[in-house]
């Protein structure tokens, strides 16, 4: 029921909002949460529990009411207790069969004796029947439903920086933020609530001071999702993540009020006293008319005033403590409320419609005899707290159990991490203020602002937490974990079965594994374990508190979806020419250029034949392009490549193969010597980034006198090849084109400074032209224009693959794998074992003395081969065993044969012998071993200089 306007209430009564829940219309106000609006409208049942489908209401109103998860359109698992109400919301409870009001799933509660902890490990595992049972389980589990129509959300992220990040805007956090800012630190203060103030609900003059302070940035309605190394804390806001890098972090995250455990402690209407106070103070909602207060600390008695102000009649205060401090007892007496000290609620009973608690039974602690049965429509529990210490744990804080306050408190804090307030074991309001000031001052001083203020914070006089708020009951249903429907006996039984340390108990019973991650259950669970094993909570310890503090939507984590894609300077030329794209690492490359009316194969064949018979141009700008200079540049290359470069003449290039330490082929390219101490060299497209990184690592390690620059993005590159290539280039360059095969020249092409390398990858007269990237498109255009008369065609990756295969050139990664040595790949000629040193040399020497595992050979299918041709990675079969595999295969239009490369066992590599390839359909194809190159075996065409 909605109360008359409260001072400092968070709802805006001028903005009524209509919404639907379970098919019924409701209304609330702007500023309400979904749950507060529902409770204001008299709803008590907000959801059903996970296992037994028991009706459940509000418990914490603090973002861990997992039993009040709702489906909002396509959004599953909306937390009603923490989600702001929006006009027009249409919500349903997530975990119901049928409807929330009538859920046949609640019948499961009758079978609860058959379904003890871990019951699913004990049955259903008949091999034949398990799939059927599993289907049933899968139909019953899960919470909300995903909606496949949901569009991808792109949520922004930003980086934030501050001196001091204060997590938690309650009394101690506000005080810490203010103290740090006053000492000169830039402060960020984050709080998950809509307003600052914590348990003062905003009615604190500190709030105004903090908001007005120029050095404090406030993030409300945002939570610190986790603590990562070096004070890296993502702040999750409704529509954004701010990744905050702080110099120091003050954790003032407070504590979670903990439920008491008694039979049917889950009935709607039974809630934490702090939840009731939130409803009253923030949302002006009266959650019940006549309540029993279950108390064990001063907080309960302070709350009585709030309850009285809201017109809630307190039938009785049941206090777990034998001795209630006089001031507290007097307060109750003054209001004429009966006080049962040393008593507890042993059982709550529901109203006839099961929608609400109707009465509670009270007994002396440890006794079975019920001394009173009290009618009520609500129970407010205030028996203790558990620190919200997740971030402290993640930061590496050593926590210790403090017997004075019966909670874990920071023992030793890591550098730059501070704690204050309830999470630090300080609960009295005045002390929290001081403790915050102490921590804020220390954090600012840590960052170099001001001096640490000498503040002594008094230890608590009485424990705010009862060490054993747990009552057993023969009939059970005394819940410890509301997410997972775990009763006291479930944990005791898990311990009996040997799951008697905290981690095993968690895994077997699933306590703390639900969406609230144990916020209301871990503390009681470890008490149960400590008592059952004759240990103490401190010795039992806690489970690891992993991120996230609250679950984070995937769209927030994914952000805008940054998937960088690299394009060469000629990209748009390719697109205009009909390029069909293929990904090559982070690049997009033309696979081939589509010609209207022609098949893919015909296009590729046409491009290849243009190179063979006329001229073609391919963009090779995706190759890694590196430059190395310095007196020891040649020495460096000697060390990283398997061939020799010290003696390479200026103006010449040489093929270059790189191995890793185990002698496995890693990459290849071409090294060009531009001057004595100046080399320009290429790597494969896919290897570029990794090779540059690896070379930089070696260079750092070896400390040679040379420097490497990555020019991959700075240079455009294209290969002009074919019998007419020279004619195309002739009028466009000042370089003498009679340069020999494998020469490199610097000169001008189309008025642009260029490097020309006479290469032979595709097996025709060809030259790789490297120009500054900004001129790439212009040079491409000029070559295409000049080539028109010669029938020039741009060619793509597929045609190049075919052309190089005709020449028997390997592609690293396709014709090699993670274990291929140079010798196996037919690169023996490139390996110079007699060098002083190169990476992989020692391994290759060892391997040289061993029988070879496999050998790459060229093969051809017989002329006129009918039927399917082998595909790459079809296996070579010999004597029924695997004897190798095909690595490349293609139809060669120039040779009119299927040609390919394959690994075969040693001894199967003799030219003119044959071997068998097995296709996917298990049919066998015979292939003949052929010497490579297949095309122009003497390489006359590419070497031609005239």
């Amino acid at each position, binding site marked *: 029921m909605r109360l008359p306007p409260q001072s400092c209430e968070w709802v805006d009564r001028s903005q009524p909002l209509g919404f639907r829940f379970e098919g019924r219309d409701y209304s609330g106000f702007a500023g309400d949460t979904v749950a507060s609006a529902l409770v204001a409208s008299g709803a008590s049942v907000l959801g059903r529990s996970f296992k037994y489908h028991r009706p459940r209401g509000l418990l914490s109103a603090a973002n861990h009411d997992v039993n009040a998860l709702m489906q909002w359109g396509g*959004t*599953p698992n909306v937390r009603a207790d923490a989600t702001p109400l929006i006009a027009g919301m249409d919500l349903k409870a997530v975990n119901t069969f049928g409807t929330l009001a009538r859920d046949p799933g609640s019948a499961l509660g009758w079978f609860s004796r*058959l379904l*003890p902890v871990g*019951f699913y*490990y004990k049955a259903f*595992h008949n091999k034949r029947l398990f799939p059927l049972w599993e289907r049933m389980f899968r139909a019953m589990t899960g*919470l909300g439903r995903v909606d496949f129509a949901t569009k991808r959300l792109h949520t922004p992220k930003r980086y934030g920086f501050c001196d001091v990040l204060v997590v938690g805007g309650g009394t101690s956090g506000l005080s810490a933020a203010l103290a740090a800012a006053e000492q000169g630190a830039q402060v960020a203060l984050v709080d998950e609530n809509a307003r600052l103030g914590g348990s003062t609900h905003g009615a604190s003059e500190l709030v105004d001071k903090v908001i007005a302070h120029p050095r404090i940035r406030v993030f409300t309605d945002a939570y610190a999702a986790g603590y990562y190394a070096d004070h890296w804390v993502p702040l999750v806001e409704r529509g954004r993540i701010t990744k905050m890098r702080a110099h120091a972090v003050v954790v003032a995250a407070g504590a979670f009020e903990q439920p008491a455990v008694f039979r049917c402690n889950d009935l709607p209407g039974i809630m934490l006293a702090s939840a009731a106070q939130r409803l009253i103070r923030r949302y002006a909602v009266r959650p019940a008319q006549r309540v029993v207060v279950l108390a064990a600390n001063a907080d309960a008695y302070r709350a009585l005033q709030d309850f009285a102000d809201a017109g809630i009649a307190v039938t009785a205060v049941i206090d777990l403590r034998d001795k209630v401090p006089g001031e507290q007892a007097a307060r109750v007496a003054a209001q004429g409320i009966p006080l049962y000290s040393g008593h507890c609620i042993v059982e709550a009973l529901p109203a006839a419609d099961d929608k609400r608690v109707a009465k509670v039974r009270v007994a002396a602690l440890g006794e079975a005899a019920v001394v009173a049965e009290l009618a009520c429509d609500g129970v407010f529990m205030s028996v203790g707290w558990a620190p919200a210490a997740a971030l402290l744990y993640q930061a590496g804080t050593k926590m210790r159990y403090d017997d004075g306050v019966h909670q874990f408190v920071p023992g030793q804090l890591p550098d730059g991490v501070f704690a204050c307030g309830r999470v630090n074991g300080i609960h009295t309001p005045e002390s929290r203020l001081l403790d915050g000031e102490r921590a804020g001052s220390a954090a600012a001083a840590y960052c170099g602002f001001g001096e640490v203020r000498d503040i002594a914070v008094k230890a608590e006089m009485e424990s705010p937490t009862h060490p054993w708020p747990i009552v057993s009951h023969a009939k059970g249903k005394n819940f410890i974990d509301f997410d997972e429907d775990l009763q006291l006996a479930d944990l005791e039984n898990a311990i009996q079965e040997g799951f008697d340390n905290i981690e095993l108990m968690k895994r077997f019973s699933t306590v703390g594994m639900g969406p609230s991650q144990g916020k209301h259950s871990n503390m009681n669970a470890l008490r149960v374990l400590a008592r059952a094993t004759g240990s103490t909570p401190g010795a039992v310890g806690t489970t690891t508190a992993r991120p996230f503090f609250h679950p984070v939507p*995937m769209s927030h984590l994914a952000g805008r979806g940054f998937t960088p894609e690299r394009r060469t300077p000629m990209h748009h030329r390719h697109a205009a020419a009909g390029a069909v794209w293929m990904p090559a690492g982070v690049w997009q490359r033309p696979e081939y250029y589509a010609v209207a009316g022609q098949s893919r194969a015909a296009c590729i064949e046409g491009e290849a034949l243009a190179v063979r018979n006329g001229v073609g141009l391919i963009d090779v700008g995706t190759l890694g392009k590196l430059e190395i200079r310095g007196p020891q540049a040649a020495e460096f290359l000697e060390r990283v490549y398997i061939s020799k470069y010290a003696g390479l003449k200026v103006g010449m290039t040489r093929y270059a193969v790189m191995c890793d330490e185990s002698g496995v082929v890693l990459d290849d390219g071409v090294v060009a010597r531009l001057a004595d101490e100046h080399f320009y060299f290429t790597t494969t497209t896919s290897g570029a980034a990794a090779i540059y990184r690896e070379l930089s690592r070696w260079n750092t390690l070896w400390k040679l006198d040379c420097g490497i620059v990555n020019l991959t993005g700075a240079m455009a590159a294209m290969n002009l090849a074919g019998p007419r290539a020279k004619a195309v280039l002739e009028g466009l360059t000042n370089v003498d084109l009679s340069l020999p095969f494998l020469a490199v020249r610097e000169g001008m092409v189309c008025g642009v400074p260029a490097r020309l390398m006479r290469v032979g990858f595709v097996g025709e007269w060809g030259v790789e032209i490297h120009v500054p990237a900004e001129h790439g498109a212009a040079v491409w255009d000029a070559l295409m224009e000049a080539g028109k008369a010669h029938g020039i065609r741009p060619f793509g990756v597929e045609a190049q693959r075919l052309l190089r295969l005709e020449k028997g050139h390997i592609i690293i990664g396709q014709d090699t*794998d993670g274990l291929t040595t140079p010798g196996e790949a037919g690169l023996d000629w490139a390996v110079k074992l007699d060098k002083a040193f190169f990476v992989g040399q020692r391994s290759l020497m060892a391997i040289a003395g061993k029988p070879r595992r496999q050998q790459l050979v060229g093969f051809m299918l017989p002329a006129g081969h009918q039927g399917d041709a082998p595909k790459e990675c079809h296996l070579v079969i010999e004597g029924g065993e695997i004897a190798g595999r095909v690595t490349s295969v293609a139809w060669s239009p120039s040779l009119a044969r299927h040609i390919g490369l394959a690994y075969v066992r040693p001894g199967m590599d003799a030219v003119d012998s044959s071997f068998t390839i097995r296709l996917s359909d298990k049919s066998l194809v015979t292939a003949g071993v052929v010497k490579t190159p297949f095309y122009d075996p003497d390489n006359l065409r590419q070497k031609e200089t005239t």
Partner: protein
Amino acid sequence: MPWRLLRFALSNKHPEPRMFTRHDSLKPAYDVVIIGGGGHGLAAAYYLARDHGITNVCVLEKGYLGGGNTGRNTTIIRSNYLTPEGVKFYDESVRLWQDLAQDFDLNLFYSNRGHFTLAHTDAALRTSRWRAEVNKHFGIESEVVGPEAVKKAAPMIDLSCGGHAPILGALYHAPGAVARHDAVAWGYGRGADMRGVEIHQRTEVLGIDVVGGKVTGVRTNRGNISTGKVLCAVAGSTPRVLDMVGIRSPIYVHPLQAMVSEPVKPWLDPILVSGSLHVYISQSARGELIMGASLDPYEVQSTRSTFDFPEGLSAHMLDMFPFLSNVKVMRQWAGMADMTPDFAPIMGRTPVEGFYLDGGWGTWGFKATPVCGKTMSYTVANDRNHDLITGFTLDRFRNFELTGEKGAASVGH
């Protein structure tokens, strides 16, 4: 409802005994000491007792049962490897898995869901074909399928993956499965315990005594033990234990992280893996999406989480399943992966007599749990490497006889 659950209702007291006997102290000597109370160590103990009659065995665990990589992996079980050695080994493992729950009389939720390795590039398609052909050669169900088969098994997937990594096909492996990982450790632990093996949790090994090239004992924080045989099954801590006996290995340790979503109603049946997007995903019987990615790119001996992991993985998840935008990630964690240069494990006898190694399990250890137990128990009992592990011995690195499984690693590492 199975009848066997009735006993819970018929009994006033919970009618279940302890799964693991509590032992207050270590004995002075054991025939075999197993270091590591994860799946592998417990499985070896189980088969030593069951198949080889060796029961004077203790398992030493620094933390709690299954608390290392057994409890940190994403529970995928498959045998679609690349090398003949790997394929035969993992195939035997899958066979053992299928009967394990009934052997244990403990439900492991062994769930045969089918496994797709998505190929987004023609290079990945080539590797898929290679694996399929090798797998089929050894009689394992494995085939290259087109995007339409992926769409059929997971109709909600965006085959274009946000437009930048279109799915060209996949390697489909019908026997691919998941299992409840913790229960595997408990099942083996209980089975070993029932047969007389002692399991000691919170017992840390401080040193191993080697005299004249032979193991003679183990020193722990709870006292010293004399023994002639030690099996090391400690995953990410392997280099540290190897140091104790002075064995060098090429193992290097990287963190491997994973994360899990809040439970949502089950919608995803198969297990999907994408090498290009660095994603693997399955949905548990609880409805949680269990998601993994590639190794952290640096060597660290730590299980701390980093934030860039859920960021990157979520971005790739949404490429495949944009509708998960509003689904929340509940928890992330990390394990320590003991990687080897050839992505195959290191198993068997070592240069130190009586010291046996079951390590180098990197990111692929869970699925091998049963077969590791089988083969290592044989190897320890007979002091002879089991036939199935001869491709995985430590000396292969010295002899350049690597077993290259990198191409079959679940995601590109």
